[in-house]
C-alpha cells in the first residue's frame, strides 16, 4: 500500500504547486523587450484655420446691461447700447411738491473690457415705439428700434466699473416737469403700467461708437450691497429718479424722489454693433463671414458680443492612420496660445472657452463630450505654466471629435470652432488673440497620441 500512499501525497503536492513572487515592482531595462510597440505622439499634422463671424446673438433678457465701446486691431470697434422699459413703482405720497431734477441711475456690476481711462459719452433717448419680440421671443444684438433723435440727457465720463459708485445721467427738466404734473394729478398713465408703457415706450442708453474705450456692465436686478462699507448704498437695477422737495416741509424731509424702475419683466436687450473697417477682418461679410488666418496677420481670434470663432480644421487627418499601419488612435489635444502683449494680464483672459463642432458650412452642430463621458463637455481650459518664462495656453481634449471623424467612412469636412459660450457672448465684449499656424512660438499645437503596434 505504500506506493498508493505516495501517489496520494504527490497528488496533494500538485494541488498546492503554484507561483508566488515579489517581482511586481522589479523593473528591468527599458529595452529588455525590444520591439516597436509603444505610444507615439505626433504634432506635425497640418492645421488650417480661419476666423468665422456669426451674424447675431440672441441678447434679450440677459443678466447684464452692456454699455460702451472698445477696440482691437483684429476686429475693429465694438459698441453696445442698452434698450429697456421702465415702470412707475412708487406710491404717490405727496402731490404738493416742487420738482428738482430727473436722473437715470445705474450701478456698475464690475465687468469691463477695454480702456477705462478714455472718456466716453452715453446718451439717453426715448423710444418711438414699444419694443416687440420676434416670433421666437428673441431680440438680437442686431435688433433695431427707432428712438427720438434728441436725447433726454447725456453724460461724458471715464467709467469706474469697480468704484461701487452709481452712474447718474441727468435727464431733461422739461420731461421731468411733465412727469411731475402727471404724478400730482395721479394720472392713470402713471399708476397703470400698461398705460405708462404707451406713454413712455422705453429708452435706449446709447454709447458713442468708434471710441477706443471700454465696455462696462450694469446690474439688471436689485442686489444687497456686497461691500460691508456703510458708505455704499444698496445696488439697484436701473431706475429714473424724479427728485423733489416739499414746500412747505414741516417734517424737514430731504432726498425725496419718485422712482421709475427698470421693468425686468418687460423687454430689454443689448444692441451690439461692430465697425470692422480697416481691421484685419474688414469686409469679412463679403466672403461668407470667414477669413483665413493667413490673411489676418497669422492671428487666430475669438470675440464675444460679436460672435467670432476660431475655426480649426485638420485636413489630412485620415493620413494619420495610413502612415502608421497597425496603429490605434488614443487621444488628441489642441492648444491655442494667446499672443503675449495682446492682453495686459492673464486675469483678463477667460478661464475657459467653448468648443463646438461645425459642418462644412460652418453651422455649429454642438459641443462634444470629454472621452468616456456622456455629460461633461470638452472645454478649452486656460492653463498658465510658470517656469522660467510664463507659458499661457488654452488646451482642449479633442479626442471625441477626432474619434468621430476617424470612424466616418467618408470625409466629413467637419471643423472645430472655439469661442465664447452663448452666455458670455451676449453679456461681454471680450476677445483673445491667438497665434495662428506659422506664427512661431504662439502657433496652435495639435498633439495626437496613438498606439503603434
Amino acid at each position, binding site marked *: 500500500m*505504500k*506506493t*498508493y500512499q*505516495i*501517489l*496520494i501525497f*504527490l*497528488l496533494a*503536492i*500538485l*494541488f*498546492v*504547486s*503554484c*507561483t*508566488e*513572487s*515579489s*517581482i*511586481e*515592482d*522589479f*523593473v*528591468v*531595462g*527599458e*529595452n*529588455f*523587450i*525590444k*520591439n516597436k*510597440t*509603444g*505610444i*507615439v*505622439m*505626433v*504634432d506635425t499634422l497640418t492645421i488650417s484655420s480661419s476666423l468665422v463671424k456669426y451674424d447675431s446673438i440672441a441678447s434679450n433678457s440677459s443678466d447684464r446691461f452692456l454699455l460702451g465701446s472698445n477696440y482691437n486691431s483684429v476686429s475693429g470697434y465694438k459698441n453696445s447700447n442698452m434698450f429697456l422699459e421702465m415702470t412707475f413703482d412708487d406710491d404717490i405720497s405727496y402731490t404738493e411738491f416742487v420738482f428738482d431734477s430727473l436722473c437715470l441711475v445705474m450701478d456698475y456690476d464690475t465687468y469691463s473690457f477695454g480702456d477705462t481711462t478714455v472718456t466716453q459719452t452715453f446718451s439717453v433717448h426715448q423710444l418711438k415705439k414699444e419694443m416687440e419680440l420676434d416670433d421666437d421671443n428673441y431680440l438680437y444684438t442686431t435688433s433695431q428700434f427707432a428712438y427720438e433723435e434728441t436725447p433726454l440727457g447725456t453724460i461724458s465720463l471715464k467709467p469706474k466699473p469697480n468704484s461701487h459708485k452709481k452712474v447718474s445721467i441727468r435727464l431733461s427738466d422739461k420731461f421731468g416737469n411733465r412727469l411731475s404734473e402727471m404724478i400730482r394729478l395721479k394720472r392713470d398713465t402713471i399708476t397703470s403700467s400698461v398705460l405708462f408703457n404707451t406713454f413712455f415706450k422705453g429708452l435706449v442708453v446709447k454709447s458713442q461708437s468708434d471710441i477706443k474705450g471700454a465696455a462696462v456692465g450694469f446690474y439688471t436686478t436689485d442686489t444687497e450691497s456686497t461691500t460691508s462699507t456703510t458708505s455704499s448704498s444698496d445696488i439697484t437695477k436701473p431706475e429714473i429718479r424724479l427728485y423733489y422737495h416739499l414746500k412747505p416741509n414741516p417734517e424737514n424731509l430731504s432726498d425725496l424722489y419718485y422712482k421709475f424702475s427698470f421693468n425686468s419683466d418687460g423687454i430689454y436687450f443689448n444692441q451690439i454693433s461692430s465697425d470692422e473697417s480697416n481691421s484685419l477682418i474688414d469686409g469679412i461679410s463679403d466672403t461668407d463671414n470667414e477669413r483665413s488666418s493667413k490673411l489676418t496677420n497669422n492671428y487666430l481670434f475669438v470675440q464675444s458680443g460679436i460672435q467670432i470663432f476660431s475655426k480649426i480644421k485638420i485636413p489630412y487627418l485620415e493620413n494619420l492612420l495610413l502612415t502608421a499601419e497597425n496603429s*490605434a*488612435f*488614443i*487621444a*488628441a*489635444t489642441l492648444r491655442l496660445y494667446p499672443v503675449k502683449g495682446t492682453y495686459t494680464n492673464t486675469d483678463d483672459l477667460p478661464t475657459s472657452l467653448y468648443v463646438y463642432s461645425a459642418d462644412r458650412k460652418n453651422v455649429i452642430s454642438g459641443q462634444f463630450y*470629454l*472621452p*468616456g*463621458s456622456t455629460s461633461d463637455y470638452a472645454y478649452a481650459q486656460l492653463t498658465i505654466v510658470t517656469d522660467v518664462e510664463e507659458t499661457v495656453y488654452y*488646451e*482642449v*481634449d479633442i*479626442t471625441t471629435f477626432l474619434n468621430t471623424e476617424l470612424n466616418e467612412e467618408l470625409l466629413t469636412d467637419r471643423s472645430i470652432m472655439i469661442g465664447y459660450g452663448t452666455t458670455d457672448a451676449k453679456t461681454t465684449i471680450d476677445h483673445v488673440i491667438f497665434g495662428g499656424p506659422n506664427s512661431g512660438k504662439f502657433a496652435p499645437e495639435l*498633439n495626437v*497620441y496613438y*498606439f*503603434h*503596434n
Partner: protein
Amino acid sequence: MFIISTTKSKRTRMNIKKIIVALLIIFQGITLLAQNSTSSPYSAFGIGELEMTSGGRNTAMGQTGIALRSDLFLNTSNPASLTAISPQSFIFDLGVNFEYTQLKNSTKTADATDGNLSWLQMAFPISKKLFGGISLNPKSSVGYNIFTTKSIDGTSTTYPSIYEGTGGLSEAAGMLAWKLTKNISFGAKAGYLWGNVAQTLDESIAVSSTIYTITKEDDVRYSGSYFNIGTQISIPVSTKSSFVLGGIAGISSRLNSEISTTITKTYSSTSETISSDVKTTGSMKLPLDIGVGLSYLYGNKWIATADYRRCDWRDATLDFSSNKLSINNSYRGGLEFSPKNDPSLFRQATKYRLGFRYESGYLNIYSNQIHEQAVSFGIGIPIKKDRSYANFSVELGSRGTTKNSLVQEKFVKLNCSFNLWDKWFTKRQID
C-alpha cells in the same frame, strides 16, 4: 499475448489500482502543465524557459542522460535507454519541482517561488527486444512581469509599460526502443507539443485630464510535433567495468502558431476594443538537438557520465522581440555512487549523485549571451522492499548578467521524483 485470468493474484489487482491512480494523476497533470513554473524575464523569449524533464536521476546528475542506462530509473533523454529495463517490469516516474529564484539587476533584487509537475513517464517491455514508453511533461514555461518605463515617441514624457506573459507548452511523447544485440540499442521518440502563451502589454498615458490604458493581448496557440532518434552502445572493458556510448539526434520538428491580437483602450471607466482577434499564423522549425554522451561504469558502484549537446535556435523566429536567438552548447557531467550496492543481495542500495552543467545559452540580448551554469546534488532512496525509489535533488545555478540593464538569476531547484518499479504482468498462478 497477455491473458489476465479471472483469478488474479493480489499483486495483479494492486497493479490495476495503481494504474487507475496514475491515470488520475495524468489527468490532473494535463491541466496543471499549463501552470507557470517560472518567473524569469528571460522566459519572454523564444517559446519560454525550456524545461529539463528527462528523469529524477538525470536531474541530480547535471541533466545528463544520453549515455545513461538503468533497469531502475527512467531516462527519456535517449529513447534507446529503454532497452535497459528488465522483462515484465514496469517503471513509472513522477516528478515535481520547486524553484526559488532571486532576480537581480543593476539596482534591485526580487525573488520568486514557483512549482510545478516536472514529468509523468512510464516504460515497459513490449517483447524481448522491443520496449515502449510514454511521457507527459511541460516543455517550456512562460511567466514574466516586465515593468519598464518608455517615453512617448516624439516627446520626453515617460509612461509605464508592463509586459506580462503566462503560459507554456506541454509535451506528450511516445517512445519505442529496439534491442539489436545485447550491447547495441536504438530508440525513437515522437512527440506532440501544444500550449498557449499569452502576452499582455499595458501602457498608460495621461492626455489632458484623462488617463488612457492601452492593453494589447497576444494569445499564441502553439501546436507541433517532433521526431528524435537515439542510440546506445555498451562496450565492456572488463568484468568490473564498461563504457556506454550514446548519441541522439533530432530528425524533424515543426511548431505552428496562431496569434490572436486584441487591442483595447480603457479610459474614464470606458473600455473600447480598438482591434480584436487579428489572427496571424506562423510556422517554424524547432531546433534539432544533437548530442553525444559517454558513461563509465565501475564495479556496480560508480557511474560517471558526460554529455555534449548542441541546439541551433538561429532559425527559430517565433518571438515577440527582435532579439536574435543563437546556438546553445551544453556541457554536462554527472556521477552516481552506490556504496552498498551488491547485485548478489536482493536489496536496493541508496544512490548518491552529483553533477554540473554549463549552457552557453541560446538567448542573445544586447549581444550578451545568456549563459547558465549549475551544480546539482541528489540522493535516491529505496522506498520499498522491491525496486522503487524516491529521488531528491537540488540544483544550484545562475543565469544571465546584471550588465547592460539585464537580469541575473540565481536559482535553487528542488526536484522530487518517485520512480516506481513494479511487475508489469504476472503469470497465471496455479490454482
